[in-house]
């Protein structure tokens, strides 16, 4: 096994450990954990089985093999970022509804004193 293979393998392993550690502390959702572990597995597989990149590039009709790798990883990252932006938009919507509810519920309770107090302590 070449040094570069070992390096990439070590990276995949460290990444997997980080994912599992976060999952253990309930910081990720199960579906995300699984997806990220699959990414680690793919990276490790490419590190061990080097010809896979060339086979992949040929199948995609790409002459320069690393380009195929760049393309695939960039596409994956773009997809993840897009999904995250959708999540953020949804959460913003929920947060907004929550804030509106809070505003309506506090109308009757004359919260003036609370708010003034909060401002002083802020």
């Amino acid at each position: 096994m070449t040094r570069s293979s070992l390096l990439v393998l070590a990276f995949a392993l460290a990444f997997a450990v980080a994912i599992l550690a976060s999952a253990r502390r309930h910081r990720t959702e199960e579906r995300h954990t699984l997806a990220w572990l699959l990414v680690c597995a793919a990276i490790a597989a490419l590190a061990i089985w080097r010809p896979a990149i060339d086979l992949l590039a040929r199948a995609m009709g790409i002459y320069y093999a690393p380009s195929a790798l760049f393309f695939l990883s960039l596409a994956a990252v773009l997809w993840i970022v897009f999904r995250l932006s959708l999540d953020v938009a949804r959460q913003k919507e929920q947060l907004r509804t929550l804030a509106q509810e809070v505003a309506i519920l506090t109308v009757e309770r004359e919260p003036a004193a609370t708010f003034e107090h909060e401002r002083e302590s802020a």
Partner: protein
Amino acid sequence: MGETRPLAVLLAYEEEAAIGRTVEELRRELPEAALLVVDDGSSDRTAAAARAAGARVARHPFNLGVAAAEATGLRYALRHGHPAVVRMDGDGQHDPKSARELLGAVERGAELAVGSRFLEREGFQSSAARRAGNALLARIVSSLCGQSVTDPTSGLRAFGGRAIPFFAERFPHDYPEPESLVWAHRAGLCVEEIPVQMRPRLAGRSSLTPWKSGYYMVKVTLALGLELARGRSRA
């Protein structure tokens, strides 16, 4: 529940200098309406000033934008059973007499009554550039609605009937006025424009700078274009 009065909703963001006078004027000139000030997360003393002037205040814990503030007012009306809602700005630009005319239109059956500065060219008319932008938007919105709309960015508007639950639940992002007109038409609500006059603001300054106005035009046009695409895919 059991509330029969219309609700006047004053939207206020950083308006501590003007909100007190606006509330007092509204209580004096529009005594038949219940009054709610929606403070959109101001950092100044807007909420306190409004309460001191005798208004009920719903305060967003942080700034949500004018569209959400309008929807908060409608949610409140829905919960308390107000049959009609008139939305006005907290800076005193909107005349209580116009509010009464809009509420009258709602009483006669309109579900969304919009106060237009341009049906009869009177009163405060804002700058030439803004009027030109408005004219462009008016053409786009009119063609999308298949009904003449002269003042698509007017924030002085009254809601009744199905429009209250409709706009309490969904609102466009950012500046909502032109898009919400298109939504109302798509939903088959009865929309009516009423001529009104507006006044210069009492205090503070407009949040729209020339740059922001340009950006606003681009964004609204994009949003309206998306609306067109939605209509086609649905049909």
